[in-house]
């Protein structure tokens, strides 16, 4: 990894703190993501992983600190916030496809209603992305007619349609049956190889070892340790990390 950063970093979190009521979920989070970098976030349940990446596209609002996306900080201006989050695609644990729309319409949705592309152009791009995740033949079906793995690949294609610069994944394989995990991971590996900036919350340590540039370990709302995968898995610095790794590996 070179330290040379071209222009503004895709994501920059500086001193971010967040509370749910009195509960301090995120404590002084500092994170700087480089262009094209793949980051895997892991940690025990309730450690604040989801909350952290959801702050990056402001599904959760933080109370202290600054979050910048390509140099633009989230603030009070809701339109500006919406504009910033359009740079970011997100894939959820529970897919969150729109069940009342066909697979194709799910993919063209943002193109039609946010980017106002003509129908033909939107559908062409949607088919291109569905082909990329290897399910173009399912375009006419409805989400609930697909298997979990297929739904999650549609969700990836849907996020890619808007041509985001950054992709967030929140445990994309955690609600899948074991046979379907690989087809989703394959799509994510392909995406990583294409140079997308990715932040992935996952317990798939094989994926982290193979794809990540950096692994981040969180506990109790803090970033405990961050290191390249080789170092992270083979020589973790903190006892907390070692304990966690001994449980998941």
């Amino acid at each position, binding site marked *: 990894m070179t330290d040379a950063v071209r222009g503004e970093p895709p994501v920059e979190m500086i001193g971010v703190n967040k509370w749910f009521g009195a509960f301090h979920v995120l404590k002084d989070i500092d994170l700087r993501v480089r262009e094209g970098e793949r980051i895997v976030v892991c940690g025990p349940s309730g450690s604040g992983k989801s909350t952290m990446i959801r702050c990056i*596209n402001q*599904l959760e609002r933080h109370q202290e600190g600054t979050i910048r996306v390509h140099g633009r900080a989230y603030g009070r201006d*809701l339109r500006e916030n*919406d*504009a910033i*989050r*359009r740079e*970011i*695609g*997100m894939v*959820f644990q*529970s*897919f*969150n*496809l*729109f*069940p*009342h729309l*066909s697979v194709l319409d799910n993919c063209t*949705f*943002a193109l039609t*209603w*946010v980017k106002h592309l003509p129908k033909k152009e939107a559908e062409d791009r949607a088919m291109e992305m569905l082909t990329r995740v290897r399910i173009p033949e399912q375009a006419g*079906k*409805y989400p*609930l*007619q697909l298997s979990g793995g297929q739904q999650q690949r549609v969700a990836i294609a849907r996020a890619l349609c*808007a041509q985001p610069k950054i992709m967030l994944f929140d445990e994309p394989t955690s609600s899948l049956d*074991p046979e379907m995990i*690989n087809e989703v*991971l*394959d799509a994510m*590996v392909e995406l990583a190889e294409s140079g997308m900036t990715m932040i992935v919350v996952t317990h798939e340590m*094989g*994926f982290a*070892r*193979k794809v990540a540039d950096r692994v981040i370990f969180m506990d109790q709302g803090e970033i405990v340790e961050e290191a390249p995968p080789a170092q992270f898995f083979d020589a973790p610095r903190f006892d907390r990390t070692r304990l966690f790794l001994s449980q998941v590996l």
Partner: protein
Amino acid sequence: MDEVLSRDSAAVEQLPAEIFKPKPARAAPPSTLGVQGWVRQNMFSSIPNALVTVLGIWIVYAFFDTILTWAVGNAVWEAENRRQCLDLVGRSGACWPGVIAWIPNLIYGLYPKDQVWRINLAGVILLLWALPLWLPRVQSKVQIGLSLVLLFPLLASYLFLGGEKGVIWSALIALGLAGFLWTLLTAATETISGLSFGRYAVAAIGFGGDNDPARRNGQIAALLALYVVALIAVQAMSLSFVATRAWGGLFLTLVISGIGIAFSLPAGIVLALGRRSRMPLISMLSTTFIELFRSVPLITILFTFNTMLPLFLPVGVEVNQLLRAIVAVCLFSSAYMAEVIRGGLQAIPRGQYEAASAMGLGFWQSTGLVIMPQALKIMIPTIVGNFIGLFKDTTLVSIVGLFDLLSMSRAVGEDTRWLGLFLEPFFFITMIYFVVCFTMSQYSLNLEQRLSAGERR
């Protein structure tokens, strides 16, 4: 990559694999198939089941036999008055001539006979206006639906009421007529060419390319021309005034419930969103409104509006009695509809909002395009149930002196010729209520099945 992603393959490749052959499927035993199989399995599977079946059939038979003997078998179809009926068959058969003589009143109330065509015309317009919504090649369904809900009432109120029309009133009626003409024309041009009326008109005259600003202006000109035609037609129309006191029967029932239905759905949506709003004032106002109107019987609201409203209005301002009843029904049904829709909204998982806002959709877009369609869809049975309830509840307006279908049917027995003839008119309007409500509920089932076609797993 392969090493990572095929974690479990190592264990499988040890022994030469045996080949798995699935057993061929056999046909089901014949006693479980077909009508006979179904009857045997479901109606005569055990002795108690068979007894219940026989008893049930006997009850149904006895019930329909009694009713049909009275309504058809022993019925009198021609008579001058009730005395003649009673002389012929006594009370063992129905006396239909009274009902037949009263049918015009049961349907149109005391609306002048020579003006009844106006109501029929409005009915035909309504059907024609709604028809394109079911035509497969018509694309502007949303616009047509909206124009129907917003503009049809303008045209219909003039047809029903008639009388003097000032400048503003004429302009509004013309808007209604223009909306109707636009719907017919658009349905026609979209069926022929896939273009809406405005575009078709421009294309027919032959304006320049797609991005030519003249095109847009041409479309506006076409719509304006349509409006002018409507305006001239409205100016030429002159209908005599019919006071709402003369409205009655099925016509009045349909007017009140139609307005109630058309109003309560959008108002219910607004109230439900208001109640869920994060702005405390809006949420408090909506909640108060909903809870207030839901905790009071409709009769009370009708009474209150009828007797108390004039007290709040300045002296001399007279609000039409029908209007008071309609306002009461609308407010009452919106409060109920709001709760139905809120139930639907609550059933939509949070992830749907999150997915929409992660795409950069704002609140109104997420609500209108993602959340509301799903919420309305799961609530179709309850929404239609509410419509049916509303349709039947309009019978209560009789207590504030309006002659809806029910009170009209009571008037038959007070006619000197048919004195005491109550059962037959009741039977007749029961049939009308049944047909209307049953149609609505069947349509809702059908709609539900069509809309959920994509969601079967």
